[in-house]
């Protein structure tokens, strides 16, 4: 039985939905033009105004917005409302220099909570659930986004934040927690510990709402195997408001956009040409309702594709594929494009090695090399050195067949690689260092 949060909107016939989107697109372009000097200037240079937008595909004439634009306008220059109307700010964890700052009005927060409640309801979360939020609370949009969405839905929230794995498991068991919110890598770690301590059967967990980073189907299968949980994926970025931009339904065949709030497109990252539905490319999103900080054609750098067919669940809103990788994350090694998610998929399918790994990229002379460190599961392969070598060669061969690249595989001891409580940092690029 598909469950809805705002059924009328979520199952709105596409024609009607597109009419609504066009109306909102015109409005937001006009709004950004009037209230954000940055956009006023950009639109002026391109001689674009809201009245020139006749159909949805005209969105392609609008200028793209990038992360650099947000940095250049640090902290508040892209806000469309005065500070007295801004009620919340969030910021991304900028790895270099200043972070990206976003601002919300009261209406923005309310719409955001609805977007989150939608994907929670879509995978069966109800007001009877107890939801443990193991995202770190703070500037990051994940924890507070899920918090207010789940609260709006009526679930009982355990705002434990990240870290302290033993206490996480204790509350999960004692409170009878049914929904876990965390990054997939932390869920993997929690699920391993739960299995080791033999408390799996004492847990009532049934749904995992994972986000904050990508999750391959293989990693998700591992989490499900360890703690018997329905693991679901949702998507968002703080530049667009946070989680709730899209999320899976119980059929898990793509992530439904909140299309009444967001207009997605797929472009070619190099030529900026719009791609057809079904083609892989970079996701670009325009916010249709954001008041605090509207974004026109924001380049997400995430690689995915869109499917406009009506889903089995009855939702008409377009589905995006699980993100294949970020164009930012893409590694170019010896001229070969490598997405870390490809490597993860290979590794997760080899039961003799653990779920954690590390990628190290080096440059020796003019040659790049990729080393993949994987953990042994136990001592079963220690009878003969040959068996360990065979395992290593097998991993190497599997990676070669997927990546078309020779990698160095290093076997390390079980549980010796770093575990992460937030977003995993598994890539060490030592080139140019």
């Amino acid at each position, binding site marked *: 039985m598909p469950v809805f949060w705002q059924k009328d909107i979520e199952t709105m016939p596409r024609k009607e939905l597109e009419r609504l989107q066009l109306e909102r697109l015109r409005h937001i372009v006009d709004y950004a033009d009037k209230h954000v000097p940055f956009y006023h200037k950009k639109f002026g240079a391109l001689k674009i105004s809201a009245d020139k937008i006749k159909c949805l595909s005209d969105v392609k004439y609008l200028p793209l917005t990038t992360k650099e634009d947000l940095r250049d306008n640090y902290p508040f220059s892209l806000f469309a409302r005065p500070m007295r109307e801004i009620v919340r700010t969030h910021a991304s964890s900028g790895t270099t220099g200043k972070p990206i700052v976003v601002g919300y009005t009261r209406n923005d927060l309310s719409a955001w909570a609805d977007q989150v409640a939608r994907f929670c309801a879509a995978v069966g979360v109800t007001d009877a659930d107890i939801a443990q939020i193991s995202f770190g609370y703070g500037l990051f949009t994940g924890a507070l986004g899920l918090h207010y969405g789940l609260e709006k839905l009526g679930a009982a929230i355990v705002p434990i934040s990240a870290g302290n794995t033993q206490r996480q498991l204790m509350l999960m068991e004692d409170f009878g927690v049914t929904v876990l919110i965390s990054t997939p890598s932390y869920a993997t770690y929690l699920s391993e510990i739960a299995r080791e301590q033999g408390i799996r059967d004492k847990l009532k967990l049934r749904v995992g709402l994972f986000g904050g980073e990508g999750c391959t189907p293989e990693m998700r299968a591992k989490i499900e195997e360890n703690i018997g949980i329905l693991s679901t994926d949702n998507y968002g970025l703080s530049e667009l408001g946070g989680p709730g931009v899209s999320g899976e339904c119980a059929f898990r065949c793509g992530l439904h956009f909140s299309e009444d709030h967001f207009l997605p497109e797929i472009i070619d990252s190099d030529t900026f040409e719009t791609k057809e539905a079904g083609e892989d490319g970079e996701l670009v999103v325009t916010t249709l309702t954001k008041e605090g900080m509207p974004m026109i054609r924001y380049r997400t750098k995430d690689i995915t594709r869109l499917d406009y067919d009506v889903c089995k669940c009855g939702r008409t809103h377009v589905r995006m594929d699980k993100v294949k990788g970020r164009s930012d994350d893409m590694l170019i090694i010896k001229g070969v494009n490598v997405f870390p998610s490809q490597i993860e998929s290979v590794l997760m399918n080899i039961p003799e090695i653990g779920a954690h790994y590390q990628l190290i990229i080096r440059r020796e002379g003019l040659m790049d090399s990729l080393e993949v460190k994987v953990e042994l599961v136990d001592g079963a392969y220690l009878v003969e*050195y040959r068996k360990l070598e065979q395992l290593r060669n097998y991993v190497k061969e599997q990676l070669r067949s997927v990546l078309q690249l020779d990698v160095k595989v290093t*076997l*390390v001891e079980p549980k010796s690689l770093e575990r992460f409580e937030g977003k995993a940092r598994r890539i060490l690029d030592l080139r140019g260092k």
Partner: protein
Amino acid sequence: MVIKQLSVFVENKIGRMAEITGIIGDANVDIRALSIADTSDFGILRLIVDKPEEALLALKENKITVSLTDVIAVGIEDKPGAFAKVVKIMSDAGISIEYMYAFISRSDDQAFVIMRVEDPDKGIAALNGQGIKLLCREDIY
């Protein structure tokens, strides 16, 4: 007749051997023989000790990757040609030796040879009745 050998996964980094052997020493376990090959990233340290089960437990408690492996131990006279005789018996029986290492006994003029074959029972059967002294735990530990 089968002897228990400890097989320990050793990452090739400084201090690892010191750590592993230290744990064994702290558990009051005496190492009788050992072998490790020079490999690049990791190796397998093979140990014959007086209390293999206790050593196994102590290593596992310290999160060392370890397992027990069945091996054959034979005692041969410490003189020319004795060792060749043992190996010949195995090759005549069509048994391939995966790895082996030897040490001198402290009591009499004997050399102990530890051998790993795929099927230890088959190895023992081949050596039986050939005038080769097969050793049991007590002889070694």
